[in-house]
């Protein structure tokens, strides 16, 4: 991954957005702060209704924050109308102008910026090449497919070379194959243009594969910001752990902490080592998360951290899921990658131990 400079393109500071008044007031955003670095592919990830679109609309200027400020390279843009902000949007519905051709759509922003005709023409040609739509320049937008419309929407938003590009679930209307292609295409475009992307999705897999950094949102709050690996390996709280990937949750008591790690005594009596979220030093009872592929099966009673019975073995081609019931009644899943010709050593009904490696467990900030 290329080094990203550490300048902030967007800084959201204590932004709140309340819709309605009195009893009907809904806080779509409950005081959000986040910094988005120059030239990064930043993703807002969260379930439907968590406030992703609202945050994007505030940055674009379609709505104004109830409190807080939004800085673009240090300047507060909150008072500026959308047509003065050097920020462009790719809308979920594409919102292509139906009475204009593909080329006219792409040139619209530059035309509104009063660029000379020759410059507009050259830039439109360049954009058409960038999104591989040269052949369809003079088509009406109703005469092209959904995937092509998506690319026109991208080209139209990129043509004026905005400081930040906002993308609101741009791939959700595409079918699976096209979505995969467009994910790669988007990454390529971001690399080639060097524009800061703020990408919105509710699809965790999409977020993990595409982003430099992810902000996980829930109910109008940002719960965790970090690189995909951080978010996946070190989820800060239960919602993040649950929303992204599969998780095993274990209860235990902290018996000691040292330098970002804790010793946790599980309810089975075994002690394991677990990482702590930054700036969090718990005592007493905590929840620990272990990803299914970070745990290994071992022979029963062989000194493994946990003991249980295999209830179900699910073969998934690339890997196998072992559904266990631990001796204290807690369900636990272990995922093992399949090797060619490898035998199923743990059949349903057999006893097994679960080994939790030194870096596998993470304490949650509950």
């Amino acid at each position, binding site marked *: 991954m290329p080094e990203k400079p550490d300048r902030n393109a967007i800084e959201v500071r204590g932004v709140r957005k309340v819709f309605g008044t009195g009893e009907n007031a809904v806080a779509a955003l409950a005081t959000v702060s986040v910094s988005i670095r120059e030239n990064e592919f930043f993703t807002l990830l969260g379930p439907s209704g968590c406030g992703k679109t609202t945050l994007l609309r505030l940055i674009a200027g379609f709505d104004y924050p109830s409190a807080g400020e939004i800085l673009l390279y240090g300047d507060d843009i909150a008072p500026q109308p*959308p047509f003065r902000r050097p920020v462009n949007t790719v809308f979920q*519905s594409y919102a292509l102008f139906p009475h204009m051709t593909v080329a006219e759509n792409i040139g619209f922003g530059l035309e509104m910026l009063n660029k000379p005709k020759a410059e507009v023409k050259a830039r439109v040609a360049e954009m058409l090449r960038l999104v591989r739509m040269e052949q369809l320049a003079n088509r009406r937008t109703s005469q092209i497919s959904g995937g092509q419309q998506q690319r026109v929407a991208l080209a139209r938003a990129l043509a004026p070379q905005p400081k930040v590009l906002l993308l609101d679930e741009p791939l959700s209307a595409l079918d699976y194959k096209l979505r995969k292609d467009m994910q790669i295409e988007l990454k390529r475009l971001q690399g080639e243009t060097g524009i800061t992307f703020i990408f919105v999705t509710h699809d965790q897999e999409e977020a993990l594969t595409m982003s430099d950094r992810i902000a996980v949102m829930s109910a109008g709050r940002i719960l965790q910001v970090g690189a995909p690996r951080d978010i996946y390996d070190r989820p800060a709280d239960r919602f993040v752990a649950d929303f992204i990937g599969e998780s095993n949750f274990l209860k235990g008591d902290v018996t000691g902490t040292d330098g970002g790690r804790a010793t946790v005594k599980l309810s089975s009596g075994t002690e394991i080592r677990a990482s702590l979220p930054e700036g969090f030093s718990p005592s007493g009872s905590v929840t620990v998360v272990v990803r299914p592929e970070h745990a290994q099966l071992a022979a029963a009673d062989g000194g493994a951290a946990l003991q249980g019975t295999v209830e179900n073995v699910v073969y998934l081609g690339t890997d196998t899921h072992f559904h266990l019931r631990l001796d204290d009644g807690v369900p636990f899943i272990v995922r093992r990658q399949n090797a060619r010709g490898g035998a199923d050593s743990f059949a349903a009904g057999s006893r097994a131990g679960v080994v939790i490696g030194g870096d596998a467990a993470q304490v949650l900030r509950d």
Partner: protein
Amino acid sequence: MAKPFSIRHQPGFTAIAALCFFALYLPILVLVVYAFNAASSTAEWGGLSLKWFQSAAQNTQVIDATVRSFQIAATAAVIATIAATMAALATTRTPPYPGLTFKYAAINQPLMVPEIVTAVALLIFFSRIKIFTGYSGLGYLIAAHTAFCIPFAYLPIRARLENMDLTLERAAADLYATPWRAFRRVTLPLLWPGILAGLMLAFVISLDDVVITEFVKSGGQDTLPTYMLGQIRRGITPEINAISTAFLLLSVAIVTLFFFVSRKRD
């Protein structure tokens, strides 16, 4: 055997429908046929002829009234359509607020207040102004027609605006278009079929008006409908039938155009 159940089949519906169509179209059919009557009274049939069309076309009173009708209808329709477009934008491009319903009602007032009431009110109001200013031109008729044409122009324009995707205007603003340029380059081109439809509807409604025109007009300001009304008082000749028939054809032509324009691009 019983027929399969269908709410489309109710006893007596076909007969009632047939009767309604009969009552609606038979008189018009008779009127059109008698426009081609060679006899000089509608009481007898004297064979086919176009002579009443010729006589109407040469009647200077008919020509004057027709020209006046078109002047009033064209001016009133254009002004009403501009006002209706602005009203439609103001009432659709805003989140609902208390008082919006009242505004709808105010705009559509001419559809609800009995025409005769408006006519009497305008008669009294304008006669004062006439005395005051000494002006007695077509302005009064144009003003009155504009007022009652507005809701007819407003309705198709509003319908079109409500169906328009608001994100298009947002996308224009996002791409650096000021509100005026967003309107010129995005809203107006997409709204155009609705505006044309409103314009034509307003034109036809103005052309057809009798009650308000009859009350508001000064001497020598007959429009085609009020001229026809005046003629009928003196006994019907097939010339009236001929004028009506020409009028009918014109209205059908405009309504047909209206249909095609409003259907376009949907």
